[in-house]
Every structure is written in C-alpha cells, then in structure tokens.
C-alpha cells in the first residue's frame, strides 16, 4: 500500500487531454467533414462570411443549450424552452415600451421573466419532485397561455431595443459578431462554473447519484432549483438575443430550439442521464446542429429529404461516438 500516491501536478495535463474524450474530438471532426461536403456543393461554405454567419446563428442555440446542459447534467430535462425563449424576447420588447427606463431594463426584465419560469420548474422538480419532463411541459403550456393573453390584451410592443439589436448583430470587435462574443462569455462562465465551483461539482454529483449527494450535505434541492432558474434565464436571454437579431419578438420564436438544444447537448457527449459531459462538447454539438441545418437549407433539399438526412446524420454521428458502454 506504499503505492498509495497521487499524481504529480504536471500529470494534470494528460488528464485534461483525456477529458477531451473521443466524443468531442469526433464531433469536431464531423464538423470539418460537414464543411468539406458542403464545399463540394458550393465553395461559399468555406467563406469567412458564411462561417461567421453560422457562428452568429449558432450563438443563440449556444446560449440556450448552455442552460439545457446544466439541467441535463442533473439528469433532468427542460421542455419549457420554447416559451421561455419566447417569453424572454417578448417581455424584453414589452419592457422597452416604457420609456428610457424600460429600454435599459428591457434585457434584465426579459431574463427575469425567464427566471420565473425556471423557478416554477425548479420548485416542481426539486421541492415537489415532479418529473422534470412533465412539469416543464406544463409550465411551457402556462407560459404560452400567458403570452396569448398578453398579446391579445395589452397592445403589445414587440420591437427590439437598440441594445438588443447591438448585442445580437453589432460588432464590438471588428469581424467578431457580438452574439459570438456573448456566447463565448456565457460559455467561459459556464465552463468555469461547471469545473471550478462547488455548484458545478454538486451538479455533477447530483446527476450521478442524488441520494449520495444529499447525504454528503449538499443542499440538493437548492442546486436543482438554481440550475433550472439558470436554464430559464439563459433561454430567456437567448430569446432577447434572438429578438435583437430579428429586431422584434414573436410568439413562435422558441419553437425551433427545443429539440436542437437537446440534440446539441447530447451530440456533444453529455449523458442524457446526467452526471457526465463537458461544455466543449456542447460547443461542438451546437455548431454541428447549426451547420447541418444551414447546409441542408441552402442545398435546397426538399423538406422531406432534409428531415431524413438530419435524422440519419444524427444517428450516424452518435453511432460513431455516442454509444453507451457494452454490457461486458
């Protein structure tokens, strides 16, 4: 038992590399293959404008998937994404109608509304122990109901503020769309939170074995609640960005983000059962999904073929690297 030693500090490097597990490197390889295949159709697929455009569009999905990833790491899922996104965008624009104060508070207000949805989800999952798949379905329905009432009753304002436009489409650093910058910041914070903080450690712990985490003195309910609130906040923030991008908010803006956000997180190697996954993978997953959708769209494949290809590509990629362990 003399060999009970720990590694030297230098040994952390290979560990980091080892964490770059095959899933993530394969995902990135798939991105490159996609681009090469695309470039056979049109060289424009390799042009900087196109790639930047993709990154910009990917950042909305990226921000939303960040929240989804937190929740998936817990072994939960958030099906209220569509209307959390819409609520974020619509409420931010709504706030903008209230003069200059409203304009400055637009984004925080939109995000806060998303947090309220996340809070309801978190209470349901953590404190009432309702399966997340169903409570989030219900809050999604409630959020939709609220937005319908709101749209019908209050002479809705839905133009994005200048700040929202700037965040989504402006350039603080020349050549780098602000949306990409924001995704980078969100991603950096998420990576830090997941790897370096007690919160992140607890998220992984709960995802792996909630009972043990609880008995280890972790306030598991609070962690779950916070994760859902963050997911709501990030979805709503994604919604405000999306509203900025489109210069306005619309009810259906979140519909096309639910399944892609789940697919992106999982394609990035995060286990849908929770407890395993890294943010780098999610980045890869988001870019993959965005590129795939865009290339299929630009290639003008009919919708039927597009759906089939989309499904098949996801299956094939998962078969390449997303397989569970063999039984023995």
């Amino acid at each position: 038992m003399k060999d009970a030693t720990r590694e030297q500090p230098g040994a952390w490097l290979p560990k980091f590399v080892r964490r770059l597990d095959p899933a993530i490197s394969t995902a990135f390889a798939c991105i490159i293959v996609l681009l090469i295949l695309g470039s056979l159709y049109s060289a424009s697929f390799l042009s900087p404008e196109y790639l930047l455009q993709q990154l910009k569009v990917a950042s909305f999905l990226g921000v939303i998937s960040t929240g989804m990833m937190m929740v998936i790491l817990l072994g939960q899922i958030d099906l209220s994404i569509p209307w959390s996104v819409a609520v974020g965008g619509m409420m931010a624009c709504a706030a903008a109608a209230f003069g200059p104060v409203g304009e400055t508070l637009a984004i925080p207000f939109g995000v806060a509304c998303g947090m309220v949805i996340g809070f309801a989800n978190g209470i349901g999952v953590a404190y009432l122990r309702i399966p997340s798949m169903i409570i989030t379905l219900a809050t999604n329905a409630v959020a939709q109901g609220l937005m319908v009432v709101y749209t019908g009753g209050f002479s809705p304002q839905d133009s994005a503020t200048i700040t929202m436009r700037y965040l989504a489409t402006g350039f603080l650093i020349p050549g780098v769309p602000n949306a990409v910058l924001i995704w980078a910041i969100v991603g950096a914070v998420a990576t830090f939170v997941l790897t370096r903080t007690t919160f992140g450690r607890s998220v992984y712990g709960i995802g792996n074995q909630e009972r043990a985490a609880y008995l280890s003195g972790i306030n598991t309910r609070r962690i779950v609640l916070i994760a859902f609130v963050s997911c709501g906040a990030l979805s709503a923030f994604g919604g405000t960005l999306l509203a900025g991008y489109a210069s306005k908010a619309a009810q259906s803006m979140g519909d096309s983000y639910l399944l892609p956000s789940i697919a992106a997180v999982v394609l990035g190697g995060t286990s849908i059962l929770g407890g395993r996954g890294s943010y780098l993978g999610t980045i890869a997953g988001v870019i993959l999904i965005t590129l795939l959708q865009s290339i299929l769209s630009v290639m003008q494949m009919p919708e039927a073929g597009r759906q089939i290809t989309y499904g098949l590509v996801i299956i094939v990629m998962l078969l390449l690297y997303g397989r569970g362990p063999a039984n023995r």
Partner: protein
Amino acid sequence: EPEIVSGPAAEPECFAPWSADTKFFKFPKKDGPYRIALANGYIANTWRIQMIQTAKAYAAQPDVAAKLKEFKVVSTGEDVPAQISAINNFIDSGYDAIVVNAQNPTAFGPVIKRAKEAGIVLVAFDNILDTQDAINVNVDQKGLGVLWANWLAKHLPEGGKILEVRGVPGTSVDTDRHNGIHETFAATGKKWDVVEVLGKWDDPTAQKATADAIAVHKKFDGITAQGGDTGVVQAMIDAGHPFVPFGGETENGFRKFCAKYAAQGLKCSSAGTGPAQVAVAIKTAIAALEGQVVPQSVKLPLAIVEDPNFKEGQDFYPDQSDNFFVGNAFPTCGINFTAQEIMGQSKENQ
C-alpha cells in the same frame, strides 16, 4: 339542407362567387337571434390572436350583436382531431352556425356530413375546406403567388435570380402559393433561377434561412416571401444585400420597411389575407341563417398595397407591432377595423 339556387348572392359585392360555376346556397330561414361558434385551431401567433380579437369585436358591433344570442370561440391547438371533436360538440350542442379556420382542408369530411344532416351552417375561412357542402370564405392563395410573381416579372423583365422563402411545408396554403409563383414564372418564358428556402411563416426562421442563402448565393435580383417577410428584409439589411423588388405578405413591419427603403430599391408588393376575413365569415354565416342567397365559395378581395402607395396610418402603422397584420378592411362588406380597434383595445380603455 341548403337549397341550390342560382345567383346572384344577397350582397353581391361582398359575397362574390369564387368563379363562374360556383353554386349558390339558400338555407331555410331561421329566426334569430342565433348561436354561432368559432372553432379555431392553433392560437399562439399574432395572426390568430388578431383574428380572434377581430371576431370578438365584430360580434360586439351593435347591429351584429343584436342578431346573436351566443358567440362562442374555442381554440383547440394544432391537433386536427381535437378540432373535429370541437365541431362535433358544437353540432351536438345545437349551435346554428359554425365558423371554422380548419387545421387541415381535407380532414373534415365526416364533420361536414354531420353538420349537413343537422342543418347547421358551416363556414370555413382562411384555411378552407375541400368540399362542396360547406361555405368557404376563400382567399385566392394561388392568386397571391401569381400576384407576387407578376410583380417580380414586371420589375425584372429579363428574368433573374429569385429567392423564394416558403412557408410551412405540407400545408395547402404553402403549396398553392408556391405553385402560383412557379406557374407564373414559367409562363413568362424568361430564365428564372429560383432558390427556395424554408421560412415557415416565421420571422426568425425566415431571417436565418435568408441570411444563409445570401451568404452562399451572394446576390439575388428579386425576393418573394410568404410570411416572415420582416425577417427577410432584416437579413438583407444585416448582410448588406442591396434592396431588390420584393413580393410579400402584409405584416406591419414589412410594410414599414417597404415605405422606409422604397427609395433605395425595396419595391414591394404587399398582399395577403388579413385576419379580418373572420368577420366576413361570420357575416356570411348570419346571412345564410337569415335565408339569404350566398355563394358556396366566397371570393375575398386581396388586400393589396404596392409601391409607391404605402400610406402611413392606413397601410402601415409605425407605432404598432411589427407582427401585426395590416389589411383589416373589407369595404365591400362594410367591415372596417382600424389597427387600434384590434390591437390597441386596452390602450384606449386605459
């Protein structure tokens, strides 16, 4: 059971027959006031919400309200069977007329049969029914495509590269409009290179699809979009794509852009199917119940505004929502709602 009669209809300017061979119905006259139901499907977008607001506002107009004992609205979501069941329930509950915005044009055969047996007036609008046995208040979807394509052909006499932003695949509205566009282009005999992308009648989706298309194809000579047009223009602006002729829908935001950038080359034809058509449908239902002659298929006039005729406060409203659909007036039917009446109700109340 309606009697098949010959035209013309009671209010010929409003109840215009779809075509020369359209049948005319004369239902047995019933005594009012009537119980009328509106079976809506999906509700969570501005068009539908606006439509429901219009229906309520129309039913509340004193002369209409006097004829109605009850006006009930139910929205059943995207699920066709739920809408079918809703209509069945209205039939069983003895409503006199049912107005429907059908989720699917072909799925209502059994319901139409039952309504007919029960002597109930069934009026479909917007997404109409594939039938000769119910009244359709019809917008010429294909004609819309034709209109847009003609607009583009007019501005691009030599043909050119066109971006077509399509709607929700698999729906008849999308298919009809698409066919209208392509048949018209083909008829010109010029060379048209049409790039199709899916906008799904949704601004962000249309915007992304357009941005991608511009990034790959660089330059288009003309654009036509079935919806999500504000997003399409936004994508052109973001990508620095020069403004080109555009045939599109009637969103307020789109028209704002059209007015603003007309000088730079954004020559628009904005036409479509305003949500106010629900009022025409209700009016038709009441007329039918009163025993007046109505066409089986009513042809609604398109609300068309083309460059350079965009007038602020009439064709578009700068301080109203971008998502709001302009085109609330069917003057021939005596239906004239202003934007404020529909979307600004509570503002006035305040």
